[in-house]
């Protein structure tokens, strides 16, 4: 099936994964959707990263915020969630919301209308974004799930986090393929970064040490229009 056309009604059982007993869909565009809760989670938008770097003399294209919002708009219009959680680092720095071009702000606000919108505080944006609706929280518990920006050091069943920007790499027939991924072991999940300029870090990096039960680690690698579920044992570092 073609996921770019995915609607809640089209989700089939085979595409679902379980996290601490809740059923979720890993969308290849990098968002997590819980159909029973009508909840959409997205992580590490890093809006206004371009202008953040431009302040330091690197004049990279100022289109990242627009591009990120456009992709976010597409998933929201597909799933029509009633709850949206932005899992932290929504803005690249504390001044990001203020710098955002008026047209982008309008688009973002339009997406938020009629939904419960939560800004989880991240390390890049510990404060509430300036002049934007939505509720800013440190973490958020819904059902058996716990949403927070940085994954806890101790294992927390049902924790959904971001922060680390996971990617995974495989080698097949002498060629290496690296993609952003959801990383999970059935108990907790770390989401890929959604922002257009966000880099990524291999799930086998030391930064992830102790976060997963390695024997059940799965990387859900983002393909063009589907997810590729790859078991931890096939992954390569670097």
């Amino acid at each position, binding site marked *: 099936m073609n996921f770019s056309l995915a609607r809640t009604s089209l989700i089939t059982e085979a595409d679902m*994964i379980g996290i601490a007993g809740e059923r979720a869909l890993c969308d290849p565009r990098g968002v997590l959707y819980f159909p029973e809760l009508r909840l959409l989670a997205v992580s590490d938008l890093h809006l206004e990263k371009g202008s953040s770097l431009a302040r330091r003399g*690197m004049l*990279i294209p100022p289109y*990242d915020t627009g591009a990120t919002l456009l992709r976010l708009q597409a998933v929201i219009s597909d799933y029509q969630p009633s709850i949206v959680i932005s899992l932290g680092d929504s803005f690249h720095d504390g001044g990001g919301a203020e710098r955002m071009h008026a047209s982008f702000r309008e688009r973002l606000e339009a997406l938020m209308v009629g939904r419960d919108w939560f800004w989880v505080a991240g390390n890049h944006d510990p404060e509430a974004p300036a002049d934007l609706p939505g509720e800013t929280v440190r973490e958020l518990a819904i059902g058996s799930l716990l949403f927070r920006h940085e994954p806890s050091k101790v294992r927390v069943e049902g924790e959904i986090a971001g922060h680390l920007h996971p990617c995974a*790499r*495989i080698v097949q027939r002498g060629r290496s393929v690296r993609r952003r991924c959801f990383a999970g072991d059935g108990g907790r999940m770390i989401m890929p970064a959604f922002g257009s300029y966000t880099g990524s870090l291999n799930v086998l990096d030391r930064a992830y040490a102790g976060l997963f039960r390695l024997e059940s680690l799965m990387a859900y690698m983002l393909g063009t229009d589907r997810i590729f579920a790859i078991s931890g044992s096939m992954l*390569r570092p670097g």
Partner: protein
Amino acid sequence: MTVEPRLAEQNAAIALPEPFLRWFGEKGWSPRAHQIELLAKAQSGQSVLLIAPTGAGKTLAGFLPSLTELAVRPRRKPGQAHRGIHTLYISPLKALAVDIERNLAKPVEEIGLPVTIETRTGDTPSHKRQRQKLVPPDILLTTPEQLALLIAAGDARRFFEDLRYVVLDELHSLVTSKRGHLLALGLARLRSFVPGLQTIGLSATVAEPDELRRWLVSQNPPGDMSELIVVTGGAKPEISILDSEERVPWAGHSARYATPEIYREIKRHKTTLLFVNTRSQAELLFQELWRVNEDTLPIALHHGSLDVGQRRRVEKAMGENALRAIVATSTLDLGIDWGDVDLVVHVGAPKGASRLAQRIGRANHRMDEPSKAILIPANRFEVLECRAALDANYLGAQDTPPLVDGGLDVLAQHVLGCACGAPFRADDLFEEVRTAAPYASLDRPTFDRVIDFVATGGYALKNYERYARIRLNKDGLWRVSNPRVAQQYRLNVGTIIEVPALNVRYVKAGSKGSATRGGAVLGKIEEAFLETLTHGDTFMFAGKVLRFEGIRENECLVSNAPGSDAKVPYYGGGKFPLSTYLAEQVRMMLDDPRRWKKLPEQVADWLQFQADKSVLPKRDDLLIETFPRGNRYYLVAYPFEGRLAHQTLGMLLTRRLDRAGARPLGFVATDYALAVWSLGDMGAMFKARKPSLGALFDEDMLGDDLEAWLADSWLLKRTFRNCALISGLIEKRHPGQEKSGRQVTVSTDLIYDVLRSHEPDHILLQATRADAAAGLLDVSRLADMLSRVQGRIMHKNLEQISPLAVPIMLEIGKMPVNGEADETLLMDAATLVEEAMGPEMSEG
């Protein structure tokens, strides 16, 4: 053009000051004709291009105008201000600058000239640089990057105000790259400081000397050229192709079969220089030679990835004639003087007639004695190529690449550099830039876009005005907006982009991740290669077989694995594509059975066999063979246009075959041929003209298909990365921190994707497409080929593989297969998981 010797002697008396004549006399030498001619032209105010073979006394010729002028210059009186640089010497290699300093110091001292000579390279300590600014030497020996830095300094105009000459060494190798573009812009700047500035270019033989003559002088008026002196002759080299007793293999690049015969030649000569085309070939040949080195002759290895210290030791030993043989890549192509080499062995095909001539010139630096060289073809196609190159060399053919227009990314870097030096007026800088040959046809709107790019990124969305790096002031001058901009510029100057690479460090076997710091660093190896390795894999590097132990931070840890075979092949080839000229020579030879007599018997037999079983391609035709094999169908084409052009062709063909329903699975490209395999019977499809081969190979392939493929191609992303780094969009280094490879703050791949979808006409994308089309894809060559073969495609539908197809078929499986989408690989991996564990497990 060349002055007769007797005439030169008469001239010598006129042009050479007495101490020089005395010095020549004491040495028992007399000045060479071209040296005097160059001096005379320089003294009459001309810029000069000197084309001469190695050993012709080019260096002395280049410096004679400066030395004679400095010899008669009045001494500086006490209290008088220090004089600025008199002569600037620029070479592509730091090592060459150092070498010249040594070689020049000797005659200067012996003649007793009051001349100071110093080098300034990346290795020059900062106190010496500062002192050079205050008390400049008469002659400064440096590199293009250092010139860019000097120009970007606030005191540049004063520093260069006394400059008389710029000597450009190995000009043929400088001008073909972006370094050459930056250098041309630097020269234009120097000319604006010192309008009477003269240039002296020293070059090996090139196909189009006029391009270099224009390069040396201001292109205002357009088309102006420097004087030209060509030194022909030298003894004709003795070149032979190894007529091996062994069987020449069908495919491969190792030439392993010839090792004992090569070893025999090394024993017969004093010092042998062995050239190969790639680093991996160098490693392999070195291993093989030591395997048969019963006499433990001192045989060394030299290539660009080795640790610098190791390379310097080899160079020193070579200078002292302590080595019997050196296996080298192109790192030894350029003119550093290396002891008494009396034999050059070229392993693998030379790829271009000019390169071959230059490499052979490395043997025997006395130009009146013939150089001796042996070519070792690594496979049968290379036998043909060597034969063609040999014939070409005897004919004196030249196939150096044509010069291309200057890169816009380089121009952006230069504009910022100019602003760092002094405020500029856009009108003036535009006129100045257009005096540089690579930018002679630059138009004003493009120039203005480059300025806009330097200032605020040049985006349609004007979001960055407040972060501008340079600003237009009320007085009409552009200035850097703050000192930090200049500081950043200085850290990122230059056009050399290093491929992300990791240090290779020794550790004990199995000590992955342990706290020990490990042993010596052996050199650097590309990240892309390391990515394909798994713990325990063995590969060859620095003349050793190594076991991959893992990656820690920025280092690749390895242990010794003596005695084992290197398991992972590394083909870093394709650096030099087969030249158009040689390709045509090879096609001509195939078409002319009379010429096969010159070929080794086994190769001639192979061609005869092909003629019997299939057909040989005619000189201007394109032969396509199709045949089934295993459960697949194969298409083999023989365009002989080089690997780059074939790869591009392969990408485009598989797209078209896919649309036609042939279900292609992959392709592989060599310098000579291209093989595509599929599930559908392509032979039957062509016979039914569904599609016809004419339609399949139509020139329109280079339109939409190329655009569509290019847009997503990793090739374009890699090119974009280079442009982004050179243009200063992304920093190579940031004050206080070194960045490399993936540590760059934002991946250029991500920037590329965003920019392409939001502003496809952005100037940096324009620069990227121009670069890719010229360099990586060889599109123009492919276009020429497609137009040449219209209506001349010969199709042979065979029952089985033909003799000519064997070499490329053997490459399948050895080289990474192109055209196989990443998604397919992911699919395979995901399927493996499902097969191994059942679907329920993959749901986490």
